[in-house]
């Protein structure tokens, strides 16, 4: 116990925590995206799927608790690591142009908080219904169409999922490094996997508001 406490107290350990919780959350996001593709199969199919998910309340809340716990750990570790890094350079450079730092890596610091805010909005919009213009409990299909028919809301979903894709790309690639998965022969696989899943999840999620907005799904 004391060993793992020491491990988790270190920045390397905190990064591993972020990687492990990140994998679990990544699995959820992937499943969420795949399940939601049933919107293209019509109202009955999607609503039936939603009913299925709600069928076992104990299981539902168990899964929700695990996800919430992972989100909390992910955020707390991220904040701790970020504070440590900020303190490491109290005096800034007048000119600072570190090469190679890519867009996804640079935006992690704010894509994280923005995604967290988006998740809260998303839950209020389509799970709780309090941020929804015309929420009908149980009629998921209607709720999604009604929400995404508002252009501003649809654009918020598109923008947030674009950020999520960048976050997943850098996060996925990073976690291989954090966990120490680095065989020289498979180096290229890490980036390919990260790109593949980021694009898959991003495109799958973004397609839905766009389909509603353009009237493909209604």
């Amino acid at each position: 116990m004391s060993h793992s406490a020491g491990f988790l107290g270190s920045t390397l350990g905190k990064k591993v925590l972020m990687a492990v919780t990140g994998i679990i959350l990544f699995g959820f996001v992937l499943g969420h995206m795949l399940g939601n593709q049933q919107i293209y199969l019509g109202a009955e199919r999607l609503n039936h799927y939603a009913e299925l998910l709600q069928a076992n309340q104990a299981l539902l809340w168990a899964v929700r608790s695990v996800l919430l716990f992972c989100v909390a750990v992910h955020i707390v570790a991220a904040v701790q690591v970020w504070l440590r890094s900020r303190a490491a350079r109290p005096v800034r450079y007048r000119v600072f142009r570190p090469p190679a730092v890519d867009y996804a890596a640079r935006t992690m610091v704010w894509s994280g908080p923005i995604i967290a805010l988006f998740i809260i909005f998303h839950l209020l919009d389509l799970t709780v219904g309090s941020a929804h213009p015309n929420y009908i409990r149980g009629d998921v299909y209607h709720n999604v169409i009604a929400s995404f028919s508002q252009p501003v809301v649809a654009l918020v979903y598109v923008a947030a999922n674009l950020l999520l894709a960048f976050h997943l790309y850098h996060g996925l690639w990073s976690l291989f490094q954090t966990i120490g998965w680095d065989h020289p022969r498979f180096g290229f696989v890490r980036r390919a996997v990260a790109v593949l899943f980021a694009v898959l999840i991003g495109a799958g999620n973004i397609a839905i508001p766009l389909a509603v907005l353009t009237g493909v799904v209604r």
Partner: protein
Amino acid sequence: MKLTLHVWRQRNPADAGAFATYELEDVSTHMSFLEMLDVLNQDLIAKGEEPIAFEHDCREGICGSCGFMVNGVAHGEQPGVTVCQLHMRHFKDGDEVTIEPWRAKAFPIIKDLVVDRSAFDRIMHAGGFITVRTGSAPDANAIPITTENVEHAMDFAECIGCGACVASCPNGAAMLFVGAKIAHLGLLPQGQPERAARALRMVEAMEREAFGACSNFRACEAVCPKEISISGIARMNKDFRRVALAGPAPARGKRR
């Protein structure tokens, strides 16, 4: 060619410091960057002013003494060189050049461009060594090792501890340095006895210093004058995780 330099001047660790601007009228493209500063310093001395303090020793990229930011990039924009190997032919007439010391809490400024890198020494003392038999020289090739491991270990052994990785990391992290040391020794048969303890002690020593955490920005790898790969960081992460989670091995083989 003419150059305008903006150089960080700071009298001592307590001084607030400020940029000073120097106009250079006639810089030869054959000079090295440090020679250009030498010429400027001769001028300053002739005028009775304090010369710019910067560290240097070998001036051929092997000792790790030199290093500062040139226009926001550690050792300047040329890849794979230290600032002592940077040549003035990479600059053009009329250029403005900003010269700043490494900025990191763990590397306090001593004077002008000279910073205190003893944080690196403390990390090395914690575990950057192997146990060897002293006495007469051992037979050559007595210890078997694969070619790949030799090559990889030598790549990591190239680290000269200049601190460019810390200086360029947006997080002020020392991961590339510590990763290089752990990977260098951990890849060699001679480094095996202390491998677990080394990862533990060196990472713990790193965490005691005011370095930041790794976000996989990869700026360190891009500026490293020895082009050391971040795969050393992955190796450090793995070695450290294994030993930190398992705890130290029992000192006795007997079951109790």
